[in-house]
Each structure stands twice: as structure tokens, then as C-alpha cells.
């Protein structure tokens, strides 16, 4: 429970004066995500921790960026609430700031919402060392531009997110997981059809011919959905293990040493939910995918070039993210259009005029 704001301001002003960029680090558990940062100095956020305000009846929690997700989730659990976007916990010390800056969301993303949907406001220290407050602690707020959302997922290139207010939700009363044996194409079709019906879907995953569906909500809603949808009911401990392995990416698929050593890279394809099956003729080695988010998030290993994978993703109406740092030199994220890149550059200039924060991490040269 320490407030290091003044210390951060001093470090940032010093870095700006010395033209010595900073690498912002929380627990470092997502250091591999994004491009390498071109900076000698690092700014450690872990000490800036603590829940500043939490009132379960408001459904709002405010905490400093260095607070661990574990501490926040245990405070919420005590009051029967949760972080609805289920951020991955790559390490026990993973911080709130890292979760917000990367905006990585868990298995419930298409059904419950992502990180961006639950950020209500934040304190940001900009590249001049000024502490700026955007948004607030209320659900509805349209005063000024939604800068908090711009910062969410910005990979720390615009400013230091020092404190965040989040909307939280009650833990669902009931949960159940169903198992179906289905082909990839059939699984994608079925999950989209179910999504159009009033069923309490809260996650989906398809791997190796098996589709798992998680249902969460009122007891009566979950029970009647289980009856309607068929499939086999998974026992509670296997179900918990499954969704946690997906959320934290500890499942074997994500750490497949054989594929990694065979020169393949893990890619995250973000596609329209109903995009057809991605085949090996489109992307070499694309067989053996893991599909989440009702078809919107498709994971695959491939030795193909970054350009080939990005082209294929773009043609299907989405984009591809390189998910481990094997192929050095390949950008992590796809490039937006030239007009949007110009907006990116001007936003960077506004919030970080001296280029202090995380240079290169989102895009080279930014």
C-alpha cells in the first residue's frame, strides 16, 4: 500500500530531460508480448500498489497499477464479485497495470466483454510528468473524450497508467460446462447459432474435435440450458481446470515445445466469429488449432512468414498477432492503415512528446 506517484513523476521528468526512454515494467510476466523496447532505463511499477477504493454495492474497484491481480481477485472474491474480463495470470505477481496496458481478455470475451468494456477511469502520468485523470468511478460518463479506453491496450506507449477504476460483477450463481464431439466447422456454426438464442453462454473452446461450452448465470437459466443443449456435463474440477488453463494459457497447446523447437511461432488470429475454417492451404501448418471466443479467436502454430499470416487474417476480415518472441525482427501487431498510423503518431506526440514511454513496443518507431 504505497503511493509512488511523486517518485514516478520525478523519474519521468528526469528521463524526458535526459532523453533516456523508459521501459515500464510491472511483474514482467508479459515482457515477451509486443516488440522489444528500445530503452536503457526501466520504471518499476510493482511498488505502487493497493486497493484505493472498493464498494461492492457500487460494482466499482479502484486500485494502483502495481497491485497484483491475485490481491485484487481475492478482495473481490471475499464479496462474491470478480473481474469479468478474466485477464490471464502469467505469473502470481502479474499486475493490474499490465493487464490494462495489454488489454488481454479471458475466455468470456465475446459473451461478457473484454478489458475495454470494464475500464471506467484512470490516472495517467503523461510524458511531461503531469498526472491526468480521465473517466471516473461511475458507469456512465461521457464528459470529454474517452481517453481511458485509448490507454487500455496501448502497451504503455502513451503514458504510465498509475491508477485504474474498473466495473466489476457478481460471481454468477451457477456455472456448468458441456462437452460435445464436433468437427471444427460444425463447432463454429453451432456456437454461433447458440449465441443467437437466449442461453447463458459465457465461454467456448474447440480443440481436437471437442467443443466445450461454459454456461453461467441464474441457477434456473443454467439448468434449463443444460437440458436444451444436450452434450455431456463436465465435472466441476475438470471444468475449472479447463477454463483456468485457457485463461492463463498454461494448457499444453500454448507451450508446445515440439512445435516451438521445430521453428514454429504461436499466432493469435482475431477473426469474425463466423469466418470459415482456416486451412493449411491458406496458412502452412494451420492444422491443429485451438478456437476460442465463439470462433473469434483462433490460435495456431506456423512456420510461415509473418506477412503471409497477416495477409490471410486480413483477407478473412481480421488481423493476426504474433504471440511469442521466437521470430525476432517480426512486428508483433499488424499495421493499421496509413491514415490511422498518422493518428497514432499524433496521439503519441500529444501524450508523450519526448518519446519517453516504451519506444517500439507497439510499433517500431512509435
Amino acid at each position, binding site marked *: 500500500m504505497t503511493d509512488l506517484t511523486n517518485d514516478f513523476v520525478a523519474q519521468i521528468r528526469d528521463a524526458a530531460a535526459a532523453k533516456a526512454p523508459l521501459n515500464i515494467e510491472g511483474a514482467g510476466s508479459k515482457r515477451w508480448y509486443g516488440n522489444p523496447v528500445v530503452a536503457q532505463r526501466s520504471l518499476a511499477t510493482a511498488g505502487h500498489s493497493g486497493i484505493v477504493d472498493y464498494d461492492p454495492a457500487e460494482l466499482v474497484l479502484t486500485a494502483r497499477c502495481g497491485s497484483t491481480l491475485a490481491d485484487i481477485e481475492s478482495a473481490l472474491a471475499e464479496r462474491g464479485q470478480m473481474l469479468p474480463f478474466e485477464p490471464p495470470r502469467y505469473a502470481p505477481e502479474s499486475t493490474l497495470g499490465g493487464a490494462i496496458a495489454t488489454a488481454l481478455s479471458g475466455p468470456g470475451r465475446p459473451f461478457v466483454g473484454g478489458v475495454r468494456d470494464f475500464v471506467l477511469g484512470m490516472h495517467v502520468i503523461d510524458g511531461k510528468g503531469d498526472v491526468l485523470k480521465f473517466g471516473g468511478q461511475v458507469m456512465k*460518463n461521457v464528459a470529454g473524450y474517452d481517453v481511458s479506453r485509448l490507454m487500455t491496450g496501448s502497451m504503455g506507449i502513451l503514458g504510465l497508467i498509475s491508477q485504474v477504476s474498473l466495473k466489476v460483477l457478481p460471481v454468477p450463481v451457477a456455472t456448468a460446462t458441456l462437452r460435445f464431439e464436433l468437427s471444427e466447422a460444425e463447432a463454429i456454426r453451432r456456437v454461433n447459432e447458440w449465441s443467437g438464442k437466449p442461453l447463458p453462454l459465457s465461454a467456448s473452446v474447440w480443440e481436437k474435435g471437442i467443443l466445450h461450452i461454459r454456461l453461467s448465470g441464474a441457477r*434456473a437459466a443454467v439448468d434449463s440450458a443444460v437440458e436444451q443443449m444436450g452434450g455431456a456435463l463436465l465435472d466441476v474440477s475438470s471444468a475449472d481446470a479447463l477454463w483456468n488453463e485457457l485463461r492463463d494459457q498454461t494448457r499444453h497447446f500454448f507451450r508446445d515445445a515440439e512445435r516451438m523447437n521445430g521453428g514454429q511461432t504461436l499466432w493469435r488470429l482475431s477473426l469474425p466469429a463466423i469466418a470459415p475454417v482456416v486451412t493449411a492451404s491458406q496458412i502452412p501448418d494451420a492444422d491443429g488449432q485451438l478456437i476460442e471466443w465463439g470462433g473469434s479467436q483462433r490460435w495456431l502454430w506456423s512456420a510461415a512468414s509473418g506477412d503471409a499470416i497477416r495477409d490471410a487474417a486480413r483477407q478473412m476480415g481480421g488481423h493476426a498477432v504474433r504471440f511469442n518472441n521466437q521470430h525476432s525482427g517480426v512486428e508483433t501487431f499488424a499495421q493499421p492503415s496509413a491514415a490511422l498510423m498518422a493518428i497514432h503518431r499524433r496521439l503519441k*506526440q500529444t501524450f508523450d512528446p519526448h518519446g519517453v514511454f516504451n519506444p517500439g513496443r507497439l510499433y517500431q518507431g512509435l
Partner: protein
Amino acid sequence: MRQDETYNFFMNQPPKSSALIESLLKVLPAANLLWHKEDTAPYECDGLAAYRTLPIAVALPENEAQVQAILKACNQFGVPVVPRGAGTGLSGGAMPMAEGIVLSTAKLNEILEIDPLSRRAVLQPGVRNLAISDAAAPYNLYYAPDPSSQIACSIGGNVAENSGGVHCLKYGLTVNNVIKVRAVLMDGEIVEFGTEALDAPGLDLLGIMIGSEGMLAVVTEVTVRLIPKPPAARVIMASFDDMTKAGNAVADVIAAGLIPAGLEMMDKPATRAVEEFVHAGYDLNAEAILLCESDGTAEEVEEEIERMSAVLRQSGATRIQVSESEAERMRFWSGRKNAFPAAGRISPDYYCMDGTIPKKHIATLLNQIAEMEGRYGLRCMNVFHAGDGNMHPLILFDGSDEDQWHRAEDFGNEILEACVALGGTVTGEHGVGIEKINTMCVQFDEKERDAFFGVKAAFDPAKLLNPDKVIPTLHRCAEYGRMHVHRGRIPHADLPRF
């Protein structure tokens, strides 16, 4: 228009205006450009009728290429452009500028695609909010955000304002339900924010575009998420003999782990005004009435209504009624939904506020408003989205009395400042526009306002798109601060008050 009329118009205009009109006539059919006073007069204000200005002209493009051509022409002439949807906005966001044109999206009103499998609708910006749900109804799908103006307001306007409605707590705002926006920048460049997937590469520009009040780009296409229509819905109408108890009941419902589909509150003056108007059977002796709705499958609703009723009873509700039919549900809601017209019926004019505060301060704010009523000599009735703390105090006044209007404005500003002091915001869903531009000085300091100007310039470096809205200049804030001192009030509302 006859040749000589056109000639006369140009003779009476400053040279820049006439040159602009000439150039716009090259890219737009004559019928799609209005510049005579009798034609442009209907566009002189939006839903905030107290502020009016006549623009040089009103352009009504029919396609994206025309939007592009209009913006390019205005960019070349350095003429500001004020985008306008259905004109139902309540904060003057679409109020014209005398030296600028209005770009209306009224003729861009086609539903381009409804895809039931992927649950998406692709829309032109002028499509009405309710028309989306009507078009999706055959598939048992709908578009969730339902601002009270949904019969008339357009999806482009909803994107500009990040519109809410009575179901936000459970289903989110516009920003949570729009996945992609296609738009034209002031220099004519076409851009796409978001994708057909759930995220886009780079910064979340879609997130900042939504709620930007037409200041960053002109929307030409919107892709929204459709969700399954809940097969059942029931609403509880609960009476309370004390406002604080009602406020606590709201907190108790949420703390019990329930997320109502709607959770609305009305105070006694509001209840009396609407009951006279709609005869919904409201409890006229109650100090506050709470409407608490559950939706979902029939079994789910039954389970939730039972839990909600138990909590409300525990919190001291003096009377609880649960809708037994769809007709009764609509009747219970009719009063809340007619609060604005009812205010219009008992008073020549009313001024609607839109602050949001943490729910725990609802009773505190209502007591402060009651005190202000005496001080300003004006009545105020209160309806609000209690579930998310979004208050809509309606200040009653007579607009034919200039002094009353000034008092109403000051009253409104003081309410908004009280919202900020309680940890809230000056606008929950109506936007800043021109109306709340002064109170933005209270909520944001100079550096934050500078950051807003920077965001604006990142999208619109020439500062021609709706440039005089939302963000107050330093000069304006200094003026506002001085005005406060004149009136003997505290200039810095961010300091605690007692």
C-alpha cells in the same frame, strides 16, 4: 431555385460563403444543399432549443463519396462543419456555427445488412435506433442501447454521444455494442475504426471515436452487435416512504449479487406529475418509487424477481407490486418513460440535467437539490437511472421570463458541480456539446483539457470538425471562474463543500 435567386443569394453573402456554396453545388445535387433562411431554420438548434444559430448552409449527402467531397471542399475553404444526426441531442452538440455548414446524415438511412448468424447489423448513420431492433426482430435479436429518444434518434448520433438508456447496467452503452465504425476524416480520408472481429490492431481508436460528439470524424457506416431477445421480462414497482431508504435499497439489490435489466427511481414530485399524465397506478404517497426489472428465460426471471422482492422488502419497501402481464409491465414503465412530457405538461419549460454520481450519494444529492430549489425559487422533479447513478433532475421554469431561464441555468450548473464534488461527472449520457462546456472547467484541469485538444488535433489537425464544442478554452474557464465569484459562490467545486 431560379437563377436570379441564386444570384441574389451570392450577392448578399461574404465571398467565402458564396465560393463554398458554388463548390458544394458541384459535388451535391441542388436539392441536397439548403442555404435559404427558411430552409436552414429547422437546423438552427438540436434538442437543446435554448441555443440557436443559422449556418451558412446545410448539406444532405446521400452517399459516402458526397460526404468526402463536402469535407474536402470545407477543408479547402477552412469552413467548419457541424455533423448532425436526427437532431434529438440534448446538449447542443449539433448546434450550427454561423461561419460553418451543417452536414446532416438524414439521407444516409439504409440498413445495409442484418446477419442473424454472426449477430451483426451494418447500418448507415441515419438509421433510427429503434429501426435496428425492428429489423432484427424476425430473428429474435435486438440492439440493446435504448435511449429514451430511440424512436427518433439515429445510430450515427448514438455513436457521437455514446448513448445509454435504461438497460445500461446489464447491457452496456453504445461503446460496448458497436464493433466497427467507418468514417471520413476532415481531409476527406476514409478510415475504419474496429474490425468485424472483437479487436483491432493498434490503439483503441474505436473507443475514443465513440462519444466524441462529431469532433473527430464523420461517421458513414456503423456495425453493431445484436443480442438475443430475452423471452420474458417482469418489473417490480416498489414504494418507499423515505428517499434515503430507497437509495439504500438500490445498493442492497446490487450488493446481493443481482444485476437488474433496469433499475429506475422517481421522487414524489415526478411521480405525481406523471401519474396525472399516464394514470399508471403509481403510489402517490410514496416519497420514492423504484422500478426494478428482470429479463431472461421465464425460469430465470421468476428466480430473480423472487430474490429482488426479498431484498426490497428487507430494505423497507412499503408496497411491492410485480407486473403479471406484458400490458402491466408496460403500464408500470409508462410513467417513467413519460417523465419528460409530463414535466412539459405541468410547466411551460423544463431543463433536463444529466449528472452521474456514485449510487451511495443519491440521497445526499437529492437533499442538496431540495435546498437549491428554495434558493433559486424554482421547482425540480427527479427521475434517474438509479442502477448506474445517472440522475435526470428536471428543473421547471417559464422560458418567457428571462430571469427564470438564467436561474434555471445557474441551478443546473450548481447541480452538475455538486455531482463532480460527490465523485461523479457532469454528463452520463447526454454529452457536453455547448451546454455543459463551462462545467467541464470544473471537472477537468487545464492539463487534461490540453490533452483533449491534443486528441482532437490528432484526428482533425485543421480543427474544423465541430470545433467549438465539448472542450472549453482556458479563457472560457477563467471567465466561468470569475462569474462564480461574482455570484458569491465557491470558484473551485472540486474542493469539499459542507
